């Protein structure tokens, strides 16, 4: 096997592994979300099917598959049908740059445990995730429905506003490390025995708030605010097409959580533990997934705790507070790096 083919096969296997993990996020989170919501609201929640209602996602999936697939008569057909598929594309692409373990040796070849070990690492993540807005816009426009259109307009404005703050917060992490490789950022945190969220606390807070807005989660779910817009951009979608949007939302959340964990919480590493080889790989993947799981639980907790923002408040927070804060953070971090304090 030539070197190029071997790399290709290795990438395929790694992508398959990550895909298998991330495709299960939505059904699991479906159950977690409903049970946690019920717990917070002091009611039982879905508890009939299987122990603790664990088989509820299976029933939901069956229901999605067998429901009638309706297309509105006046919808813009090609765009309407394309939008849910396009929503999944960035969601299942962004996690390729997330490292999930130490280098392992297979047949005498060193294989880094990241699907795409590219020089533009973090930027690639941000670039691909910024394409996610098009599916929302297409869905909102193609449905030919006032609520959907309003939801799409809100989504595009909101995503653009918060992407700036998010990107600036991420850039501040890159400055002391001096690399776009996420594995270098993980190695930097391990070498300093300090997770980035302590020295970069302001940047972390900006990242946290902006990531809620980027994934359209409460308190920033204005694009699908059900009390005003029915369901926003996916009002007209039912059955499996709605399920695809649902899947995309949760996969995006997981991918963004994985990025946040890698940038601010040491990624796949455990503090003061250095394992290598296959054991290290297994522990690394488990650690990353556990950290992502905690982040997802945090997403759910926030959703059922805070009320929704008003639209002008959302814009004001993004442009007048988060963006200046992120710029200030960037300048301070650059100055501190120059002075040798970081």
């Amino acid at each position, binding site marked *: 096997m030539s070197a190029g083919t071997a790399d290709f096969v290795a990438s395929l296997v790694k992508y398959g592994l990550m895909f298998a993990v991330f495709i299960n996020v939505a059904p699991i989170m479906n159950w977690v979300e409903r049970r946690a919501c019920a717990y917070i609201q002091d009611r039982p929640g879905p508890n009939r099917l299987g122990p603790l209602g664990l088989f509820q996602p299976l029933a939901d999936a069956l229901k999605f598959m067998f429901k009638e697939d309706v297309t509105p008569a006046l919808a*813009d057909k090609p*765009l309407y049908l394309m939008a849910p598929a396009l929503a999944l594309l960035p969601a299942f692409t962004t996690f390729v740059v997330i490292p999930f373990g130490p280098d392992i040796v297979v047949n005498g070849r060193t294989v880094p445990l990241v699907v795409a070990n*590219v*020089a*533009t690492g973090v*930027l*690639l993540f*941000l*670039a*691909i995730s*910024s*394409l996610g*807005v*098009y599916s929302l*816009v*297409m869905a*909102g*426009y193609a449905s030919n429905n006032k609520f959907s*259109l309003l939801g*799409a*307009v809100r989504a*595009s*404005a909101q*995503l*653009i506003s918060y*992407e700036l703050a998010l*990107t600036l917060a991420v850039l501040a992490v890159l400055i002391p490390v001096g690399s*776009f490789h996420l594995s270098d950022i993980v190695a930097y945190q391990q070498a300093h025995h300090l997770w980035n969220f302590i020295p970069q606390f302001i940047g972390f807070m900006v990242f946290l708030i902006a990531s809620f807005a980027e994934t359209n989660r409460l308190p920033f779910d204005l694009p699908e605010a059900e009390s005003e817009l029915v369901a926003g951009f996916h009002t007209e979608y039912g059955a499996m097409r709605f399920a695809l949007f649902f899947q995309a939302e949760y996969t995006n959340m997981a991918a963004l959580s994985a990025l946040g964990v890698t940038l601010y919480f040491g990624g796949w590493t455990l503090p003061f533990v250095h394992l290598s080889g296959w054991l290290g790989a297994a522990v690394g993947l488990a650690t990353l997934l556990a950290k992502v799981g905690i982040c997802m639980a945090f997403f759910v907790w926030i959703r059922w705790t805070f009320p929704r923002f008003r*639209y*002008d408040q959302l*814009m*004001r927070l993004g442009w007048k507070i988060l963006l200046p804060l992120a710029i200030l953070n960037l300048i301070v971090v650059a100055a501190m790096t120059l002075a040798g304090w970081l």
Partner: protein
Amino acid sequence: METVIFFLFAALAIGSAIVVVTHRSPIYATLSLVLTLFSMAVLFVLLGAPFVGVLQILVYAGAIVVLFLFVIMLLNVQKEENAHVDRGVQLWIAILGAVVFLGLFWLAFWRTGLRIGGPAPARLTEDLVGLKGLATALFTDYLLPFEIVGLLLLVAVIGATVAARRSDSETVRPDDDFVSGDEPRTDPLRSLPDPHRTSVAEPAYSSSKREAHS
């Protein structure tokens, strides 16, 4: 493999660019523009400049075209409308554009000695288009043009802010960015109820109450 990818995305770029110009619906045209920009980014990556490719997606496809779509949807333009311009003027502008384009083409191919079937040009190297190479070039050799471009962008931002501001500053309250409808919005939580206005919901109740007070 690389050749196949090149021809696939080159064809996609040209095809979608033609759709951008010819399609009647502005939404379709804008979405095709995204496809064009994406294909161009892939071509950049093939040329050995992944950083430029990623920036192309991040800045153009991810941000600027979203703004285009935002404006198109806000205006709710359904179909192309006939422009009220003289066709003759358009023709002359088109000819001028074609001449400039061919001139640039000539510069790019004849002056640099590139020929179809001739020797392959040197590949873009890491210190020319890589992260470090680009940054070094921007902040040493091209520092002045870089700063001037920055200044130009700042001027554009200030210009846009001034242009977007309403001429009648009386109608906009400093704390209220979104005014819907014609009448200035009053926030029920911030302003006291108007004692002379009868309630829409229960006119009888509020008028009888006022009589009781007086």
